[in-house]
């Protein structure tokens, strides 16, 4: 420990207990009147540090210590400050943050993967590859724990897959489930009604078949397929009741459709038209498969 004299009272004090003002050292008693009597600015009075005592651990050495920011620091403390470790709680905090980030990344990565799968499914769907679209949408839905928006999309694609394979019983509840969350989708409304119409036909409920198709036509007045649906329903009613008003109604729709035939839809429309005409001619209701068994190249006749 080094000692110095107070320049005012001339008593000896440990260096650490002295203050420095205008090149002179003062003890704590003598510095007080100076503070009271003068206008002291910040930095005018400074502490005098004993260069042999560590300011951090108070270790008293006889040698002059290195300084940090002008403060004497012993070698051990100096080494500690140079290599000050992060506290344990900061390390734990960092680990928790890192784990959260990694966990969040994996958790949310599923959303990204699901999004990519949906994009693939959408492409398949627009290319009429319904099974592929359904499989991708199913995977996408599983990735995000059946999130409503993705699950209903899966329902749509699965429903459309069943619809395309004429499994109307399986398709209908799925399409209705999709519709529940997407009430503005009018195209699906059309598919649902077509599904109900096909189910009614399969169940030989021709009255329902007829009325459902009338409903479809009521909504899609200028759709040639809706017109043919109504024509088909009326033809069934004619075949079961022999009431000519249904025949006339059916023929009326068939004539209306002619105005909507284009090179693009001609083959599809003509195929359907001929099946309806055969029904009106034969007064027999047979399904598509049976029809092609009897007429592999389609029926070539006409109806008056």
């Amino acid at each position: 420990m080094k000692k110095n004299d107070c320049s005012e009272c001339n008593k000896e004090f440990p260096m650490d207990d002295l203050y420095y003002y205008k090149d002179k050292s003062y003890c704590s008693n003598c510095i007080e009147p100076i503070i009271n009597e003068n206008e002291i600015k910040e930095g005018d009075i400074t502490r005098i540090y004993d260069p042999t005592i560590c300011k951090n651990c108070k270790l008293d050495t006889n040698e002059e210590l290195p300084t940090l920011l002008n403060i004497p620091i012993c070698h051990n403390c100096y080494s500690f400050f140079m290599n000050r470790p992060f506290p344990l709680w900061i390390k734990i905090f960092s680990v928790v943050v890192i784990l959260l980030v990694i966990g969040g990344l994996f958790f949310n990565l599923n959303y990204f993967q699901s999004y990519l799968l949906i994009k693939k499914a959408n492409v398949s769907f627009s290319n009429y590859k319904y099974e592929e679209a359904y499989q991708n949408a199913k995977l996408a839905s599983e990735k995000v724990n059946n999130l409503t928006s993705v699950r209903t999309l899966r329902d749509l694609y699965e429903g459309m897959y069943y619809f395309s394979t004429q499994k109307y019983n399986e398709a209908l509840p799925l399409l209705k489930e999709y519709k529940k969350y997407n009430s503005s989708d009018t195209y699906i409304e059309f598919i649902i009604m077509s599904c109900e119409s096909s189910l009614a036909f399969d169940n030989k409920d021709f009255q329902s078949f007829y009325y459902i198709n009338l409903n479809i036509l009521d909504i899609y007045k200028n759709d040639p397929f809706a017109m043919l649906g109504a024509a088909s329903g009326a033809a069934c009613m004619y075949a079961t009741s022999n009431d000519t008003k249904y025949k006339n109604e059916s023929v009326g729709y068939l004539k209306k459709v002619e105005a909507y035939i284009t090179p693009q839809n001609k083959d599809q429309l003509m195929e359907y038209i001929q099946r309806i005409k055969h029904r009106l001619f034969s007064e027999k209701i047979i399904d598509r498969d049976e029809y092609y068994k009897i007429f592999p190249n389609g029926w070539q006749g006409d109806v008056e």
Partner: protein
Amino acid sequence: MIIPGIIIAVLTFPGVIVHEAAHMLFCKLRRIPVLDVKFFQFDMNTTGYVVHGDPKDFSSTFLISIGPFFLNTLLCVIICFPAALPYYLFNESNFISIFLIWLGVSIGMHAFPSTQDASVLWEKATTEAKKFNILAILSLPIVVLIFIANALKFIWFDAIYGAFIGIFLPGLIFKNLL
């Protein structure tokens, strides 16, 4: 509405901790002694601080002062980007994502160095710039920006910055790239 800084600091405490940890990390990387550190404290004036020795060169001063800006911003982006995915892709929010967004934005909004950091950097940069130190010259406008950012804290510029890089930037990227 003026909300005391301490309340904001408490609500976004991870950001304060990361900010001070970043100062300390860069001190350690540049072999600068750390005399004292408070990662977080309930104080109206200073919620955290690092007292360190004088850096030997300007690049150390620059890194120690600006380090939190880089580290906090980077962490904010890393935490928030994946967390924002469910919202931007499916309009879906879940507890994990909300928590991570809070964590990320809290860290992001404490990215800017304090006025004191900027003052130290300015002092050193002006001295070094006279010696044609390129980094010092380049850092002058950065320091000005830090001062402006700090001055704009009263209009929540720090929160706006955190929200921008943590919430809006992922949205911009997702909408344009995906």
